[in-house]
């Protein structure tokens, strides 16, 4: 039993390392994507970069989230239940806040990915200027909220890991 728990912890540590590595790429891509979206609102369209960042954010978001899910059961018992809940309850609560926020970012990432190819300096056939403007605002809002969620998740993840890691 103890041997099985030890193997699970070792495996979880590898997963958390990969989770952190993916999060490094994610926070860079999400921040750049937010800057590109800000440019769209000011009439500066870096469409190719916008598409690249949307795809990068979507890939790394799902990867980071998935790796976190795989490591979660070990964290839940070995770290949270046995240590954080007892000595550092704020870190337990912060972790759950972070995981819930991260899950809620998933549909926003899908929206950003779905819209990234539709937005550009040229008006598409059949679309009005107002429709384009509304789409750009909707796109930018989703991209910014994703960037905010990613920043919150990374900073709180660091704070929690500094308190107690797997």
């Amino acid at each position, binding site marked *: 039993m103890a041997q099985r728990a030890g193997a699970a912890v070792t495996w979880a540590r590898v997963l958390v390392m990969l989770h952190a590595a993916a999060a490094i790429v994610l926070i860079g891509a999400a921040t750049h994507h937010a800057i590109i979206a800000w440019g769209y609102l000011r009439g500066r369209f870096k469409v190719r970069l916008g598409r690249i960042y949307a795809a990068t954010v979507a890939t790394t978001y799902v990867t980071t989230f998935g790796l976190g*899910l795989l490591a*979660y*059961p*070990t964290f*839940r*018992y*070995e770290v*949270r*239940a*046995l*240590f*954080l*809940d*007892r*000595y550092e*309850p704020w870190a*337990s*609560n*912060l972790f*759950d*806040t972070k*995981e*819930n*926020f991260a*899950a*809620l970012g*998933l*549909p*926003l990432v*899908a*929206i950003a990915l*779905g*819209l990234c190819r*539709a*937005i550009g300096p040229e008006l*598409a056939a*059949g*679309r*009005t200027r*107002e*429709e384009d*403007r*509304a*789409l750009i*605002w*909707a796109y930018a*809002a*989703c991209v910014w*909220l994703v960037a905010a969620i990613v920043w919150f998740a990374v900073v709180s993840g660091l704070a929690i890991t500094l308190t*107690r890691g797997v």
Partner: protein
Amino acid sequence: MTPPRRFVALGLAAVAFALAFVYPAITPARVAWYDPVGHAWSYEVRPPGVAIDFFGRCAQATVAWAVVLAVALVVVRRLPALGARAVGLVAAWVLTAIVFVMLFYAWTLHYRVPVPAPLPEGAGASAGDRGR
């Protein structure tokens, strides 16, 4: 499919995701739980111990997202042209739903007092030891 229609479908699916995700937290609803100690799944309101409902909530939210997206993609194709007003309204609903659920979790978790699991026999020097 035009981008406004695609956005409306994705937006409605995002609202469904947020509502399905938060539903078990605001009302006693059955959801899939995973017990990381016994490595077992259960489908109930709240099992004892350190079981995790996050996987179950994510799964049911993803199913709700996929179902609403599939239905919405069919429905929005049949609607007359969607203007800027429809896009703005859906965007407002999406952001309201997501931010509202985020605030709900931030509020409830800020005031939560976690109950620690009992330490296993002889775990003082490893798992639950503060001095690690």
